[in-house]
């Protein structure tokens, strides 16, 4: 009589010993990375074929649908602003006083000549919403124990149909990613070079993006300052704010 009860009690214990599933890891990664409101000051160091350029910007982000970015340097890009509201993106050019909606094939263009595209910026940052994950193996990256996750897009209109992500087992931070097209062709690689601990979140401080289809040595993305759960005024997330 007692034996079946013992077995029933042992089942959850056994599943706990097996460790989390791919989707559970992805949920925890999302929970670690996500904060409702943040202000980020960053630098992109773009290593092109001929030269290296540094683009500085400040972003205000609220949830997953609202983001406002102002470029601060170099002089040519200073005053350029970008506004993302849900699935729409606008760029404001100070020199022409024009606001242009970025849509269609323009979304595939590079942001400021970097290895990031506008499409990357429009992606839903909540990975569990758009990908299902399975654990393929475990590896050590830069001395950190990682799960290697295979992410498969749940929808068809996703920029990267398939991803491989190396997730730090302790910090739930993605340390490395390979992004693939539906054909299986590798499109981009992402390598986290430095992590930081901010308000109980482990976040990437320094990342290298490489568009493997482009010549050049990739784009370094450095977060110089980040404020989580900051107060951000509503007016910032409106088209009128672009011309301010």
């Amino acid at each position, binding site marked *: 009589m007692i034996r079946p009860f013992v077995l029933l009690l042992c089942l959850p214990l056994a599943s706990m010993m097996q460790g989390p599933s791919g989707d559970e890891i992805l949920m925890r990664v999302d929970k670690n990375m996500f904060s409702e409101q943040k202000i980020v000051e960053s630098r992109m160091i773009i290593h092109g074929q001929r030269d290296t350029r540094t683009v500085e910007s400040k972003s205000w982000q609220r949830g997953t649908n609202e983001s406002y970015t102002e470029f601060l340097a170099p002089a040519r890009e200073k005053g350029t602003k970008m506004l993302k509201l849900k699935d729409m993106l606008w760029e404001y*050019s100070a*020199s022409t006083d024009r606001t242009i909606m970025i849509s269609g094939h*323009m979304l595939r263009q590079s942001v400021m000549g970097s290895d990031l595209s506008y499409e990357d910026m429009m992606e839903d940052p909540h990975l569990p919403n758009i990908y299902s994950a399975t654990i393929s193996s475990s590896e050590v990256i830069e001395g950190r124990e990682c799960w290697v996750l295979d992410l498969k897009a749940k929808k068809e209109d996703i920029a990267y149909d398939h991803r491989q992500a190396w997730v730090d087992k302790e910090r739930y931070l993605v340390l490395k990613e390979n992004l693939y097209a539906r054909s299986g062709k590798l499109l981009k690689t992402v390598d986290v070079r430095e992590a930081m601990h901010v308000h109980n979140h482990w976040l990437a401080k320094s990342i290298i993006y490489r568009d493997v289809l482009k010549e050049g040595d990739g784009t370094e993305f450095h977060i110089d300052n980040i404020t989580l759960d900051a107060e951000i005024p509503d007016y910032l997330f409106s088209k009128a704010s672009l011309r301010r």
Partner: protein
Amino acid sequence: MILFLLKGLLRDRSRSLFPLLTVFLGVALTVVLHSWLNGSITSLITSTAHFNTGHLRVMTRAYAKEANQVPNDLALLGIDTLITELRREYPDLLWTPRIKFGGLLDVPDEKGETRAQIPVSGLGIDLFSGNTPEPRILNIRDAIVRGRAPLRRGEMVIGDEGAQKLHLEPGDTATLISSTMNGSMSITNFVVVGTVRFGIVAMDKGTVIADLADVQRALDMENGAGEILGFSRDDLYHEERTNAVAAGFNARHSVPAPDTLSRRSSFAPVMGTFRTESGLSDYLDLAGLYSGIMIGIFVLAMSVVLWNAGLTGSLRRYGEIGIRLAVGENRRHIYLALLVESLMIGFAGSLLGTAFGLAVAWYGQVRGLDSGTIMKGATLMLPTVIRAQITPFTYVIGFIPGMLATFFGTAVSGIGIFKRQTSQLFKELE
């Protein structure tokens, strides 16, 4: 004797009219066909050279590999030095820098929001420097449909069809959205001062033309250009000369073997000729071959017709020749008389046919044939108005075969004279 034969030909029209008409028509058709073929090939070469490749084109090695995609990130930099070198080394050629680019032309409404937008392909050309050959090469002033050519910085002209789609009027402002050579988005305002029509479908749909300095500023290409084009001063493509110039330039700018794969060597300049750059090499060879074959077949067919005319003429004159033989005229004399007659008919027919063919060709050269309706959607740099072209060769292309065909036709058919037996003549003539 010649005067005697001429009188005979004029008085007996049945002896001269049909051969003369045949020679006239054949020669006229040959002249017209040759001038039209010549004209359409020359039009293609000229417009492709003017709007696309030049007679010579200098690019970086990396740009040259993907030139069709206009990769301005691989453009030439420091072009002032390079152009100075080219002008010093090859003063018999005109050298001019150009930037080709693609993008969107966006027209704002009163609130600054997008009212209309079309994809455009653009040309940044040297419009304002003192010795620029560009306005003449592109013939911009004659291409203006509305407004005027750019006179100041910040101005552009646009293809008339594109302007109509955007409801743009001269004086309106439009925003060019493109990519800088670094890959950033470029947003630049221009005043559209005129609309143009070059008569080339691929150019008239959505082309914008602005000054090189404005395009350099817009695309962040200071002292840079995608291409430097070279043109011969007489505007004709001299293949041997261009080959020699390209070979000399490429030898001087060759990259040592160990460096050929280095990134730096990708940006070394390389020169290509019209034949290699236009992608028309095979086409030109084929066009030359086919036009030669067509003209050859035509001349051959005309010769056969004239030969046949000579044969029929001789057969028809079977009785006459028999009587002449019977009354004692020498066979060689009759044969010679027939040959001289054929030369006279050939000369007259060829002269009239060439004159008439040249008149039609001249009309075709001046007025042209508008094929715009059948070329909708064409991407070739072929003018919608195809014109004939008269060259020195046009004067002889029909004349010589016209003369020779009648002569050889008569020469072959006249051999029969020597086979006639005098003893059988009266029997034959009964």
